[in-house]
Structures are given as C-alpha cells and as structure tokens.
C-alpha cells in the first residue's frame, strides 16, 4: 500500500497567526484519532439540516486538522463552521473511536477567540455577560430585580401593548414572551444555607444553584432542595459558589472558565459533601469536566474530588426519592432530553424512569428525544436561523406525542421548548416544565388533573 507513492496533492499554505494559534491549542493526537469513518454523521443535527460534510463532526474535525497541517488558507470558514456547531456532543457517544469532540471544539474556539476581532457591540456584550455578569451572583440578582420591575410595573405590558417588542428580531421576541418571572431572592436567601434532612439522614448534598438558574428559576432550585431533604439528604448551599463557566468554556473563554471552576471547587471543598447536585444538564456536564478543564494544573486532584461527586438531581431522586408515595397526576407526559445531560453526564434513563413512576400518568416517548432542540447555550441567539429550523423539526415530533406535559431537565431547553410550544401554536394543549418542578407538583398536590 506504499503511501508515499500515492499521496495526493494537498495545498501547502503559509501558516497565518490564526492557524498557528490553533496549532498551539488543539490536541493533535485527538485530531488524529478521528479515523473518518463517518459514524458520527447521522447523530449530528447540523449535518442533518444542511447535508454538508463540512457541517458534520467528521468535516469539522477535518477542517481543524487541515488548519493545523497547513492546508487551510482562510480560518474564517472554519470559524463559521464552529459557530454553527451546537456543541450538543451527540457525536461523542456515536463515535466508536472515542474522539473527544467537545474538547477539540473548546480548544478551537479558545484559539479563535484569542484572535477574534469582534464588532464593538459584540465585544461589549461578551464582556458584560461573561466577565461582568455571570461570575457575580449579586449583580445577576440586581439584574433580576430590574427584570421584576420590567415585568411587574406594567412596563412589559405597556411595551407589548405598544407593539414595541415587534422591533426585536422574531427570535428574541419569542424568548421575551416565554421569559419566566424573575425572583428577587435566590434559593439560599429564601431557605438558608443549610437545610437538614427529613427522617433518617442518608448523606449530605451540596446544591449547585447556578447563576441564571437561581434568578429565573429559583422555584426549581427550591423544589430541588425540598425534594432532596425529603429524600433524606442534608442540603448545603455554599455561598461562595459562582457560575459553572459552561458558557465561557463553550465560547472560547477557557481562562475565565478555569478561574470559575477553581472558585467553585474551593466553595464546595470546604464542606463535607457526598454529592454535588445540579439540576441543569448544561452546568452539570461542565462541573463533571472540571477535572479535565484543570488537568494540567496543581488543583487537578481537587478537581477530581469535585467532578467525581457531581450528580444530576434525577439520579439521586430515582435512587432515593419516593415517587411511589406521592400523589397521582392524570396526564400524558413526554420528555425532551438535555444534550449535555445525556451525552456528557450519561444520564439518559433516570428522568424517564422517574416520569414513568408517576401514578396515573401515561409516559409517551418523544421521537428523537435525544436530538438537540436547538437551544444549546446561547446558540439560539447567535444562530437564530439554524436554531429555528431545528426547533421546528423538534416541534413536529412533540405535536405527534399529543402530550399534555413536555418535561425537560435543563433551563435552556425549557425556555426553548416554551418558545417552541408558542411557535407551533400548541400553548392551549400543552405546557413545558422542568422535571423537578413537575415532581414537586406531584408530591405537593397529591392529586391533580390536567
């Protein structure tokens, strides 16, 4: 098979600063591990939408490798392709060679980000969100208060009435419409930093409360704590914890993500917790990957301690939460998986099993429930068009389930599903809810009807 004789001609172009950065940051072994078998193609939503090799995992890896090998002239297209990638990582479980695509994606985005010349407003927004806002829970809370003022004072009503919102791009308009009511107090402000176990104590859980989660979905955090305490866990909410850093890591702000990771590890390390529980698949996945995020640093051991303890709420509830003792709920229920929860944390069956255990309810499996809904962090804001295409496809299948309740396990997906339900004109027939909130409802009401 004498390869030297048959090697085809590949252009050898001069390395640009961008390709040199990629060369520094990308793991070449991992790039070479891709054997180009194409097994990942059917799993990839953007490949399905476009049918183009360059928009497939295999294609994206090939483009990254071409950049490093000096075959790629213009980094712009690579960047576009990486922006178009949802980061859903459905390609990873599909890959028999075990290529760590998520890692490559982060490394590439990091390299490109170092070099990016964003438009001024993008730069301002990025700084605002990534550096000023997310890492600072207090500031987020302030923003939450502003949001409450907007929602409660009638300003929202007024702006909606005046048609002012029509000025927003349709996507943002849909999101604005489904935005939940912000809470002025987070979970710890409402319940304190320690909530003891009810009944016989089984262990101690540290709650990862999230940043946006704790402002927009405080109720879900509160329900999480209540269910855990009832299941026999002491719950601690370390006050020093901060944003998980997922959005940072996925947008090429790896340094920032690392520093947030260190802070979180310290916050939980001080407490003797058996588990660190998250109720947002997107956050949980990164928390579990802290070990790898900090692998070449001296904190690596502490990071492992942390990552090993991370669990999704559904795992603990399935093992310890007595769903069978709760009330009944007569409804058709279906479930949309969170990509990172299933592809990275490998939590697939637990939420489904919890739902199946609800008395009186009929569980229907959503066709392609494991396919990304198009929310993907801030993807629905950065790539509204592709996101909407993926969402519309998803809603076709959601409609076919004829379910009353669509359950998700990640706040981003939840918002996306709410927007999808509106978009598809299904608001009168179904609602979307976080699995924890649904379980809390079943537990509390004892009996309920839809």
């Amino acid at each position, binding site marked *: 098979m004498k390869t030297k004789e048959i090697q085809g001609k590949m252009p050898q172009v001069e390395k640009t600063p961008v390709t040199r950065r990629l060369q520094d940051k990308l793991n070449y072994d991992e790039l070479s591990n891709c054997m180009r078998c194409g097994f990942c193609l059917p799993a990839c939503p953007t490949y399905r939408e476009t049918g183009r090799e360059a928009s497939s995992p295999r294609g994206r890896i090939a483009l990254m490798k071409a950049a490093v090998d000096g075959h*790629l002239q213009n980094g712009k297209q690579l960047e576009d392709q990486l922006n178009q990638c949802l980061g859903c990582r459905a390609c990873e479980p599909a890959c028999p060679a075990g290529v760590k695509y998520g890692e490559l994606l982060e490394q590439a985005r990091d390299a490109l980000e170092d070099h990016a010349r964003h438009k001024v407003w993008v730069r301002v927004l990025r700084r605002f969100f990534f550096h000023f806002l997310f890492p600072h829970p207090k500031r987020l809370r302030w923003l939450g208060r502003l949001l409450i003022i907007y929602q409660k004072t009638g300003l929202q009503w007024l702006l909606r009435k005046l048609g002012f919102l029509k000025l927003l791009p349709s996507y943002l308009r849909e999101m604005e419409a489904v935005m939940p009511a912000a809470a002025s107090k987070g979970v710890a402000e409402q319940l304190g930093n320690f909530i003891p176990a009810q009944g016989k104590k089984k262990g101690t859980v540290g709650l990862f409360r999230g940043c946006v989660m704790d402002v927009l979905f405080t109720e879900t955090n509160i329900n999480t704590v209540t269910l855990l305490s009832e299941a026999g866990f002491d719950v601690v909410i370390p006050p020093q914890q901060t944003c998980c850093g997922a959005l940072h890591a996925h947008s090429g702000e790896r340094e920032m993500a690392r520093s947030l990771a260190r802070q979180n590890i310290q916050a939980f390390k001080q407490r003797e917790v058996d588990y660190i529980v998250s109720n947002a698949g997107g956050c949980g996945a990164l928390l579990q990957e802290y070990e790898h995020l900090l692998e070449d640093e001296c904190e690596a051991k502490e990071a492992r301690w942390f990552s090993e303890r991370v669990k999704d709420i559904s795992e603990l509830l399935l093992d310890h939460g007595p769903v069978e003792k709760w009330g009944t709920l007569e409804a058709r229920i279906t479930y949309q998986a969170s990509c990172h929860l299933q592809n990275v944390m490998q939590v697939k069956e637990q939420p489904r099993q919890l739902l199946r255990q609800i008395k009186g309810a009929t569980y229907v499996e959503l066709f392609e429930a494991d396919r990304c809904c198009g929310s993907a962090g801030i993807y629905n804001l950065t790539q509204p068009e592709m996101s909407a295409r993926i969402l519309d496809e998803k809603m076709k299948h959601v409609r076919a389930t004829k379910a009353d309740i669509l359950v998700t396990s990640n706040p981003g997906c939840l918002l996306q599903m709410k927007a999808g339900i509106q978009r598809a004109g299904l608001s009168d027939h179904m609602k979307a809810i976080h699995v924890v909130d649904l379980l809390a409802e079943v537990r509390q009401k004892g009996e309920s009807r839809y």
Partner: protein
Amino acid sequence: MRRITGEIRAKLIEAAGVSAYFDDEESLLSHSYDATPMLQAMPEAVIYAQSTNQVSAVLKICHQYEIPVYTRGAASNLCGGTVPVHGGVVLVTTRMNRLLEIDEENLTATFETGLTTKALHQAVEAKGLFYPPDPGSMLVSTLGGNIAQCAGGLRGLKYGTTKDYVIGLTAVLPNGEVIHTGGKLMKDVAGYDLTKLLVGSEGTLAVITEATVKLLPKPQATSVMLAYFDDMYAAARTVSKIIAARIIPSTLEFMDHGTILVVEDYAKIGLPTDMKAILLIGQDGHPAVVEEDMEKMRAICMEEAREIKVAKDMREAEELMTARRSALSALARLKPTTILEDATVPRSQIATMVEKIAEIGAKYNVRICTFGHAGDGNLHPTCMTDARDQDEIERVEEAFEEIFAAALELGGTITGEHGVGIVKAPFLEWKVGPAGIEVMKGIKRAFDPKNILNPGKMFAGQTRKRVVINR
C-alpha cells in the same frame, strides 16, 4: 487531465444548479478524504447530485472537457476509493436518497443510491421483509457505495453479499448516457450481465443512480451465541466442524485475543479478556430450525470451547452483534492511525492465516489484531500505528505486503469486500494476473475511453514485486 476553468465552471453550475455546486475552501477540504488512513487530495469542485438527469448533464460537460469525476457516497470506504487524486469533481450522492418503492408482490425494493443501508433495512423490516447485506458501516454507508464496492457483512456466509441481491440498475455512463440494466426479473440472460459488472466496479465504470434489489421474507427467529476458546486452532477447527456438519449459520464471526481486549474495553459487555479467540455464532429462520441448529452448533462448540454464552433475547443478541460490528472502530481507540486490511483465505486456512499474521506482525515489530468473518474466510488484520512515525509506517507496509502474499499462497485473495481502490491497486495483478488486468483495462476503455471516472483507482502505475513467489 484538464482543470476546471472559469468557462467550464459556469457550465457546471448551470448543469448542477447553484445550490448544488461548491468550490469554497471548506467544501473542497471536506471532500478530500474518505475513511482510508493517510490518503488525501483536493478536488476542484464538489457537486451534490440531485437526480439522474442532473448527473447526466454534469457528466456530459466533464466528458467533453475531460474533467475527472469521483463519485462519493458516505466516504466510509477503506481503499481510497473516493479520494480525488487527480482533482476535478467530487460528485456526492447523499442528497439522492429517496426510497422509491417496496414491491411486496415481487419482493423487491427500488431506491436512489444515496440512501443509507440502515434506512433500507428499517423500511423493509417494517414490512416483514429482509435485505441481508449488512456491512459494519451500514449506519452511514450508502447503497450506491455498497453496490460499487460489492459490500459484504456479517450475514455474508449464509446470504451472500451485495452482488447476490442487486437485480436492476440505472446508471449514467461517463459520456452522460443513461443505461438501465436488469429489472425486477429474477431471470434475465439478455446479453452480458451489465448489472453484475457494475456491482463492484468501484465507481470506475458508471455513476449508479438507482437500483432495484431483491428482498427475502424476514426470518422469524434469530439466535446468537458466543463461544470462548483458549486456543485459536480450536476455534478454527470448530468453524470447520460446523460447516462439515452441513450447517450454514447466518453469522460466524471471529475475534482474536487483541481484538477481544479492545472491544470489551469499548462495549463493556462482559467478554472474558483472557481468551485467545471468540466465535460469534448466529442462526436465523424458522424457530424450530434455529433451535435445532443452535443446539447442534452448541454441541460442536462444547467439544473445545471453554465457555458458551447464548444471548437471552433479541436485545442481548443485538448487543453482541453491535459489539462485533464496532471491532474496527474500537481498535481505533488504541493509537491515532488504524490501518485495516482485508485478506481472505479459504475457510479451512483461517487458523494458519491468523497464525501467519501474528508471526508477520512480530517479525516487523508492529501491532496487528485480527478479526473477521470466519465463516467465509474474510479476515481483517488491523494495525494500530501512528502516521507520524515514518519508520513504523514503512514496517507496517512491508508487513501487509507479506500478509497479502501469504493470503494468496494459501489460495486466498487480497481483498474480500473492501475493494481495490488506490490501496490495493499495486497488488491487483498478483491476484488476477497480467491477462486478467488486460481484460479489465479493456472493459474500462469500453465504458470510459477518456478515463474520467475515478481515475487513479484499481489500476496502478506500477505493480508491486511479489515478496514471496511460489504458488
């Protein structure tokens, strides 16, 4: 070969449509490779085929201007079959993927060739029918690619390979003419059998746009078991005994020790990692027959196997089959570059061949694991290496050369199912002889006098000297 000039480009865009023609850098780069390691070359344009007519229009232009055309399905082939070594156009078929008809009266299916193998399986099985060819890559591979490579699979022993099912084709000749061969007929002897000729033609004779295949009733029952052996020869003897007992199992797959270790590590299905060989044995058909055959085979295995494990249910059976299908890919986890070969020997020679492969691996100090379709003698010696290690790569190449020679010596062939492409081209003459090569070249000239379809494949500039010449 000519290049695509501005004028030709304009004509191609007109023929293909703007939404199907790409020549931006990322499209070219992402069509410069297939699943074959260490091969890559840049095309000048990529066209996503939409219909037979469009393919015909594109080929007319390429023929007129002598632009090379490389037909590409999912690019999962392992012989460099779709690498555009002479530039030109890569013609992708994946958008041409409609299932046109399942004819339940004639038991045939007709489809566009960009359809994936798996999609056809699902569609026909939903109707209680069965399309046996099941290459390990069936999740992604296109039926066009299967036909062009004459793909085989795990069920090859009992049911044969792609060539045994294709009965009709629509194909576009290099000059743009469209031909229809065969049809829904089970019998047809009008002239040369062009259908069979195009099956396995590796994209060098025509672009196949539609195909009709025959279907079978879906077997009512399937059963699978694993037999573990402490000794490779014992496993090989068991294969021979099963065949000698006049049983044709639907599956008879083999994994050597190295492969077992890796597959277990990947699939975690509880394979014992201290075994020297495993046979995966399956039967399908009428429940009573399946039971009887499985019982007989179990008895035969018991003579030498250390342990036998029968799958409890369909799910477990499917798990075992999937694990075997992923063998190659699982091996790919070990080292960055995985080179899979495809030597085939008469099944009585399997143990000797596996032993030879191990010896040759040791001689050249390269790591080679072997698995394959024991039932039909089709072995996949697979080498885990690293393309950056030039010294090792050279040893790997020498080792494989010796492996091919050994296969031929045992009465085998240089490829059982993956085809010749670029990778085996230098060895083709070893197998078919100079006269065979001349006939093949004559056929190529008759179809494609200007040599625009998949040039650089099948026929090498130079044949490799045989390392061992005694047959």
